[in-house]
């Protein structure tokens, strides 16, 4: 995930920065349903649930 700071931040290592990013991992599982309405027309819907964990420092 990346973003832009509203106010520039003075970083000890990088100096003044305006953008930053954070790394993380996520996992999810879901269930979907596919219905064939016509020969060349399918409907598909899916519901997922899961979580995301980010590192504590940028």
């Amino acid at each position, binding site marked *: *995930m990346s*973003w*832009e*700071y*509203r106010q520039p931040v003075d970083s000890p290592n990088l100096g003044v920065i305006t953008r930053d990013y954070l790394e993380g991992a996520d996992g999810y599982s879901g269930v979907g349903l596919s219905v064939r309405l016509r020969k060349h027309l399918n409907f598909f819907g899916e519901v997922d649930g899961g979580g995301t964990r980010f590192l504590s420092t940028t």
Partner: protein
Amino acid sequence: MKISQFILLNLLLGTALPHVQAQEAATNAMSALAKPASATKPDVYHLDTSFGYRWPLNGDCRWLMPATIVFGKMLDDHNTLDAAFSGGVIELKPGSTADAQAHQPSFWNWVLRGNITLPRGTRPGNPTSPPARASSG
């Protein structure tokens, strides 16, 4: 601004797909000229795009809108193994700590996932063979 970024990302992903299909069609046409017609084979690979809307249950995010492009391989007739690349925009909750410090957040994501499909006719309570007829007398 965020909506325009999301639409732009969708357009980029959406235009990538026809290019790949066009290349594949051209390759198939050349090989079809060199070989006699053969029986239709089932698709081994697939390429998809999708769009989503997510509500985080906690944190400072109000919603996320990912756009995804997926390249997958059929493991058998129903199940696939996919590699997906997605990106999108994030709307922060107004007044939250994150919103006070940052704006225009976005995300990019690599995913490796498996899709398990339960084909019609194998669901519990939906036998593939008709029920036995009850006999009388």
